[in-house]
């Protein structure tokens, strides 16, 4: 096991290097840089040429991309993610709290997704082909059949404006509920699908039939045998979904004024603020890799039949 983990960790190195290289290649291809983007469209642009040149030199934007790459990697190895040009402060100062916000939102939505998705999946599997199954499947598809921003606006309209149960302006702990609900319900659909499939699979196995014949109750069968199996499959899915997190989160975050890295990512690109973009890419890639590593290890631990392969 230790050997496996070590090997997996080693394999992260080429992946991280690959990500860094790709982002720098992309940077070289993007026509505008942060300083130009910041000053363009302000009437003073012509007269601000001097300021622009000063800033560009300060952030090494006047060097070819590979030199910028080496400078970046050198700083990175010393734990320095650089400064955000637009925000005029170290990247980590801005990213830190936003990352925490995104993690909070993710965990909360994951919690909702698991509760809703597993419940729906289990009910659908146990009462297979009943109206319950059909309803659960159909309703489950609702969440993934709507663009996230639209779903988010509808939630606000219903819960905040019509019912007045929740505040529109983020406030206290309740602020989390609406965005987590929006993200969670979207993520619940695939979880319920996978849970249902795997439960049906297990419930039709011979040993379950045998147990059933021995007079084990349906509840016992589900809880003792089918559910653990379903959980293992769901676990892998959750790992993969965390990778998609930023993608789903960026829209939900800006709709609900939840200030996480998703919202920042969109701004960072539009500002052409490269140090910021780079740090966001690195931090979300690292999160993804670590979460998946943990998920794989858990997977192996829960289900000894699985061989640990890379």
């Amino acid at each position, binding site marked *: 096991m230790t050997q496996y983990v070590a090997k997996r960790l080693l394999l992260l190195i080429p992946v991280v290097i690959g990500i860094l290289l790709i982002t720098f290649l992309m940077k070289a291809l993007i*026509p*505008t840089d942060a300083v*130009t*983007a*910041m*000053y*363009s*469209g*302000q*009437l*003073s*642009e*012509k*007269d*601000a040429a*001097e*300021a*622009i040149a*000063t*800033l560009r030199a*300060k952030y090494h934007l006047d060097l070819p991309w590979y030199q910028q790459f080496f400078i970046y990697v050198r700083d990175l190895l010393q734990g320095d993610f650089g400064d955000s040009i*637009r*925000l*005029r*402060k170290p990247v980590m100062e*801005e990213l830190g*709290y*936003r990352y925490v*916000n995104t993690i909070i939102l993710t965990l909360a939505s994951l919690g909702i997704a698991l509760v809703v998705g597993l419940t729906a999946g289990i009910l659908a599997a146990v009462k297979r082909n009943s109206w319950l199954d059909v309803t659960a499947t159909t309703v489950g598809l609702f969440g993934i059949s709507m663009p996230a921003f639209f779903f988010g*606006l509808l939630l*606000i*309209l219903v819960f*905040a*404006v019509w019912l*007045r*149960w929740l*505040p*529109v*302006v*983020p*406030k*206290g*702990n*309740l602020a989390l509920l609406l965005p987590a609900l929006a993200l969670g319900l979207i993520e619940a659909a695939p979880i319920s699908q996978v849970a249902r499939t795997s439960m049906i699979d297990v419930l039709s196995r011979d040993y379950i039939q045998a147990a059933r014949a021995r007079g084990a109750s349906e509840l016992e069968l589900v809880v003792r045998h089918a559910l653990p199996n379903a959980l293992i499959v769901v676990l892998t899915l959750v790992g993969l979904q965390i990778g998609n997190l930023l993608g789903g989160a960026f829209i939900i975050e*800006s*709709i*609900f*004024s939840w*200030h996480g890295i998703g*919202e920042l990512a969109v*701004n960072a690109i*539009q*500002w*052409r603020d490269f140090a910021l973009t780079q740090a966001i890419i690195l931090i979300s890639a690292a999160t993804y890799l670590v979460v998946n590593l943990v998920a794989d290890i858990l997977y192996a631990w829960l289900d000894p039949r699985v061989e640990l392969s890379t």
Partner: protein
Amino acid sequence: MLNRRQFTLASALSMGAIAVSGTGVVRAATPQVARFRLPIEPEGLYNVQSISAVVSGVLGNYLLEGLVYLDAAGKAQPWLAQSWQASEDGKIITFKLKSGKTFHDGTPFNAESVKFLFDTILDPKSASPTKGIVGPLSKVETPDEMTVVFTFSKPFAPFINLLGQSYFGFNSPTAVKAAGNAYPRHPVGTGPFMFDKWVPGASIELVRNPNFKQFRPDAANQGLAYLDRVILNVMTEDGVVTSALLTEELDAALLTADGVAPFQSDDRYTIINDQNAKNLMFMEFNYKKAPFGEKAFREAISYAIDREAVLAAAFGGNGKIALGPLSRGIPGYDDAVAQKYGTPYDQKKAKQLFDAAGWVLKDGVRTKDGQPAKFTIRSYASSSTERALAVIQANLADIGIVVEVGTADWGTFYPGLLKPDWDMDLNRWTWSDPSVMSQLFRSPGHRQLLPANDAIDNALDGADTALDTSKRLAFVSEAQKALLEDRRILPLLTDWPMTVTRKALQGYRVDYLGYVYGADLKIASA
């Protein structure tokens, strides 16, 4: 009135303590708090580093004060300044300051504070975007504590009016020096409110300045601000802001025409239009690309656009169409010139002009010398430009000009115009002084593509250097005429920024430059 229903419900759900504290359940006893919207989080509240609309708004409405303000007619009036005097050659302007102002941190406001701001702006190390605005300013001196002398390398006519902008509001030099890089997150000014706290990403809170002295005679409240606290919530999405106004979680918010619609017939809200708005949506042409170098072609296109339709589509009719190259809200706008030399919508005339220029209509598309009239209009992506473009596209199709639309985010669109491969663009600028014309259209132009034109260039240079008001206005009129005659700009419209306020919020007024009188704001008790 927030709101018995919400309160009972929340306590029933036993979340009252977390959820509704501070929303005004016990308003009678709680201080006066007003909540406003910020469309994006400011990168920092320091005018030396940022002049974005959001930053200038927060600074100008609540935190900072300047040497002058513009009165209802757009004329500069003394604010922190007592008086000013320009030298004969126009290169030196001397300001006398009023005494008795102190910054929020107790530092007295004096000539040093003024010099400090302008020195910081001029220092290349600050890389200040404001530096370009003060153009030919070369040095600032303080012969005594209440006198400031500005010296310019050449006469700079827009200077006095520009001083009304919050770009030139004053920060406490003590605070700036002490806080260093952290200053933009802890601004200290002289305004009716003081900075209190910044919740990163979420909100900025201000409190009443207990030592405030009102130096603006046009403010209704000559004493301390009525509000105890101002909360500025960062909320990006318009639909969400509309919701928050409906649930009374916001007291006022700047909204687009779409966002305003639901409040139009609701008597719990007031909609405030800034009819002095200083923005202008216009089209311009790439002179370096045929056939846009030909005046006849530009002129024909200029007659083909139905501005009323563009205004209706893009801003729900909230604004006014423009025939002249200056926005109506800018002092010096000449309506007579606009009416006489402008190109009002006239499809028949546009067709005749195209025919006369040799563009022959064939199968719905005009061609000349085998070249079909197929072009692209570039713009930045936003719902208003996209709607405007839909109308423009249809207008041009009607007369046999086929245009495609290419929109991108501002950072791609605007720098992209420096490469001379575009045909036309749809653009929009906001500026408070006629110098906007020279910034954009004095050759070689803001995108380096315009040929020299003596009539235009001389009038614009005159307008930028004549300190005498009436002389300057004559040049400004001359420039408007010259720009129109060359068909260098195709003016479309000025839209009125709209703020929806709850009826309970009183005293919400904007001045000539669009700043709110912060001290006048008040929440009426129900």
